[in-house]
């Protein structure tokens, strides 16, 4: 392994301790009990409690903090500022940097961004670009930085990142067509779909779905679906996730208006 000359180097390799309780067999079939409740007493189409707080980082032009169950992340937006590296463009450029903190996941992550984080950055970028009026900011750069403080499910981090980023862009005064609300879910055995999976549920999923929408226009800006699912289940899952984004949208609006009163 390479030595990182800009950091204090610890052991070349380390493995986290194995906790004895983890040897107990997992009750994988008991995701939903007979009352159609999940382990945390949710229905299949219910999201976890959500908390959004805009404008908490004074140095940033816009910022937002979001909690979605165990998922916690902070977004800061800088810009529009001068574009010094990229080529000339008559409209603005948007960049996104998504990073899990080293302490965010069960397994400790490194300081350098890995491929998963880069992929998530691209997905968040693709979800936000249609909603922003970039033509109003020629030759400028808008930077979004997302730090995950706790990972309560990777797909929910992606969805929460999109939601919090649009709140942060709005508080930065960037002109937008609409806020972007995002929602995620997972596919399980027997063509079941559960909305907003947490970390435990994610271990047993056979596929997942993440959708980002602009609810005012009832249009989607981005959709990711992975896994082998039949068509009817896919349609129903899509409708459930889209309904969930409308609920998240009203929470976003409420939080933005509350901070002005």
């Amino acid at each position, binding site marked *: 392994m390479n030595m990182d000359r800009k950091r204090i180097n610890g052991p070349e390799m380390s493995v986290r301790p194995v906790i004895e309780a983890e040897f107990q067999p997992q009750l994988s079939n008991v995701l939903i009990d007979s009352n159609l409740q999940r382990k945390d007493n949710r229905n299949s189409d219910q999201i976890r409690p959500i908390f959004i707080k805009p404008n908490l980082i004074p140095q940033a032009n816009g910022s937002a903090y979001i909690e979605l169950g165990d998922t916690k992340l902070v977004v800061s937006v800088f810009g*529009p500022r001068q574009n010094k590296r990229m080529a000339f463009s008559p409209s603005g450029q948007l960049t996104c940097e998504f990073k899990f903190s080293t302490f965010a996941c069960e397994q400790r992550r490194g300081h350098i961004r890995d491929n998963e984080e880069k992929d998530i950055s691209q997905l968040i970028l693709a979800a936000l670009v249609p909603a922003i009026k970039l033509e109003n900011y020629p030759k400028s750069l808008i930077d979004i930085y997302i730090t995950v403080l706790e990972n309560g499910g990777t797909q929910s981090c992606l969805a929460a990142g999109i939601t919090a980023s649009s709140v942060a862009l709005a*508080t930065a*005064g960037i002109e937008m067509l609409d806020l972007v609300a995002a929602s995620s879910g997972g596919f399980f055995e027997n063509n079941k779909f559960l909305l907003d999976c947490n970390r435990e549920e994610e271990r047993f999923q056979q596929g997942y779905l993440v959708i980002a929408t602009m609810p005012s226009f009832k249009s989607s800006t981005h959709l990711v679906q992975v896994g082998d699912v039949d068509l009817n289940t896919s349609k129903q899952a899509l409708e459930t996730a889209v309904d969930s984004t409308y609920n998240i949208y009203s929470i976003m609006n409420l939080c933005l208006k509350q901070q*002005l009163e």
Partner: protein
Amino acid sequence: MKESTEIVTPGTPLGYKTEFQVGEGTYIRDEFVYASLIGEKRIIKGEDGEVDNIKLPTITVIGTQLPPIIPDVGSVVIGQVSRINSKQATVNIMVVNDKPCKDNFIGVIRVQDVRATEIDKVQINKNFRPGDIIKAQVISLGDSKSYYLSTAKNELGVIMAQSIAGETMIPISWIEMQCPKTLVIENRKCAKPSFD
């Protein structure tokens, strides 16, 4: 005249496009006017008196953030000269239309944009020095790195400069500045003073 105070967020429909003109912070899509900023919705009435020229009221959203300060073509900017060579002077733009920028933007004054007369005889080092504070006008978005600025007007040019001795100099003509301490005269493209 102004009406009603209401807080809106991006994507909120504000009214039909047949009833309102679009102002700042709003846009039209299909048949509606939508907000594009967070802020206070305001309706500015047109003139009611004239029967033939009935104007639609203008709907605007006053953003909570100050609008981002970006130089645009025609903006009058104040900046500091950071580098000069025989063809151009590089300027760090600090103020745009009397409002300070948060981030510095880089502008360039080319040798042909320094003054409006005798363009072929201009020498950059007799018009600007590094460290001078200048007033200029944006004439183009320029290339990928910098805006193109011009000082080819009487009101544009150096507004503050320090002499070799370190004192702030006083402009004594269109092309000369004098140090009040050592009385040395240095060449600059001086701006016409404005007393606002």
